């Protein structure tokens, strides 16, 4: 039997939904700088909103990295969150990491696990980088469907490597978090229960440990949007996201506390606006020009895919 499904004809926009609930989407204090190092990736995941892959040449230059490091020096970011593509494939990643590591209390690298090697794992450990690793499911079938054949086995090996240098091991002081995205047009499982199950199963089957599991809905953009359209799932998925709108999730949305800088220095309010090409709502186009953090209360542009961030307990 179904969950309650609210149908609107024509569908309500995200902006209209915010108004109906008496909620505004404006900036809070900006504490995180997300750095997208490019579209180059060793994988072509079918849910990737950025359509990253081995054929993509866009990567951040050292000049843009200098602008990022300069911004991190001038502005009080609590967290620098480095993503891609696969940051590990960017030739000057170490330059960027050594530049920002002393400038923010928390530096995060989003890893696809399969592009890791021992040298990088030890570099991350040395710089106390927090690792957030893609790990969608506890079985090879769903993992392969989303990320490609052989990725499951390589991911388990990478987790063992990270554990061996202290990541995800209690008392070692280096954090390893996993991210699970559903392998299809359905919503993620509840985070707390999934984390408990992932922890128990990874420990029992592989002796692998980690710190936290985050469960996020897939955003209908890029390669995932193309798949939704092709498979006939787009309408149903969009309805599901809209029906699950949770006004309480708006307060914790990442766009309220984060700036995203693309590989070429362009600024966006979040990773998804970056993918869709909706520029930063605060008026500055490039990180080179960023003199101060956006003021709390600055409006944030919205789009229909924003429903993916406000469904259930939200996307932070």
């Amino acid at each position: 039997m179904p969950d309650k499904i609210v149908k609107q004809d024509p569908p309500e926009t995200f902006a209209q939904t915010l108004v109906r609930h008496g909620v505004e989407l404006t900036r809070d204090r900006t504490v995180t700088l997300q750095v997208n190092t490019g579209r180059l990736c060793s994988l072509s995941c079918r849910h990737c909103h950025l359509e990253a892959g081995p054929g993509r040449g866009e990567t951040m230059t050292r000049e843009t990295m200098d602008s990022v490091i300069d911004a991190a020096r001038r502005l009080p970011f609590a967290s620098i969150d480095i993503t891609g593509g696969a940051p590990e494939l960017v030739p000057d990643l170490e330059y960027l990491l050594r530049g920002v590591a002393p400038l923010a209390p928390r530096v995060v690298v989003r890893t696809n696990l399969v592009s890791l090697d021992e040298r990088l794992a030890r570099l991350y450990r040395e710089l106390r980088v927090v690792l957030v690793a893609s790990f969608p499911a506890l079985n090879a079938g769903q993992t392969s469907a989303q990320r490609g054949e052989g990725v499951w086995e390589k991911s388990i090996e990478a987790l063992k490597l990270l554990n061996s240098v202290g990541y995800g091991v209690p008392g070692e002081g280096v954090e390893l978090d996993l991210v699970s995205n559903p392998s299809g047009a359905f919503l993620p499982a509840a985070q707390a229960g999934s984390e408990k199950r992932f922890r128990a199963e990874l420990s029992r089957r592989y002796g692998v440990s980690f710190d936290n599991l985050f469960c996020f809905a897939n955003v209908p953009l890029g390669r995932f949007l193309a798949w939704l359209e092709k498979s006939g799932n787009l309408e149903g998925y969009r309805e599901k996201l809209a029906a699950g709108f949770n006004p309480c999730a708006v307060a914790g949305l990442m766009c309220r506390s984060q700036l995203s800088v693309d590989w070429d220095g362009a600024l966006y309010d979040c990773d998804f606006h970056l993918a869709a090409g909706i520029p930063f709502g605060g008026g500055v186009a490039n990180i080179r020009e960023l003199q101060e953090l956006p003021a709390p209360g600055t409006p944030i542009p919205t789009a229909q895919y924003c429903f993916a961030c406000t469904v259930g307990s939200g996307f932070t």
Partner: protein
Amino acid sequence: MENYYDPKDLPRFAEIGNDAPELAQKFFDYYGSVFAEGELSEREKALIALAVAHTVQCPYCIDAYTRGCLEKGASLGEMTEALHVVTAIRGGASLVHGIQMRKIAEKLSL
């Protein structure tokens, strides 16, 4: 009516309360409580529901609990194994009644 089953009917389930709201409400309250996290997790309950849905051959329930199992984090392997559990019980239930057949046949036979 060209088909007895239409997927668009599934979201209309609540309409069953239109002419007997109190009874429907009691059912839906009970239903909600049954599937809430308890001694069994929501995921385990969804797997049981999926298996039973195949036993009672309810296409609405198969649709709802296939989605439900995926959204509770179940894998296709777990979902398929759950079906084999009910299939084993269902087949076993037929076979075990064969003992009745054998007893009766033995009584009637020389």
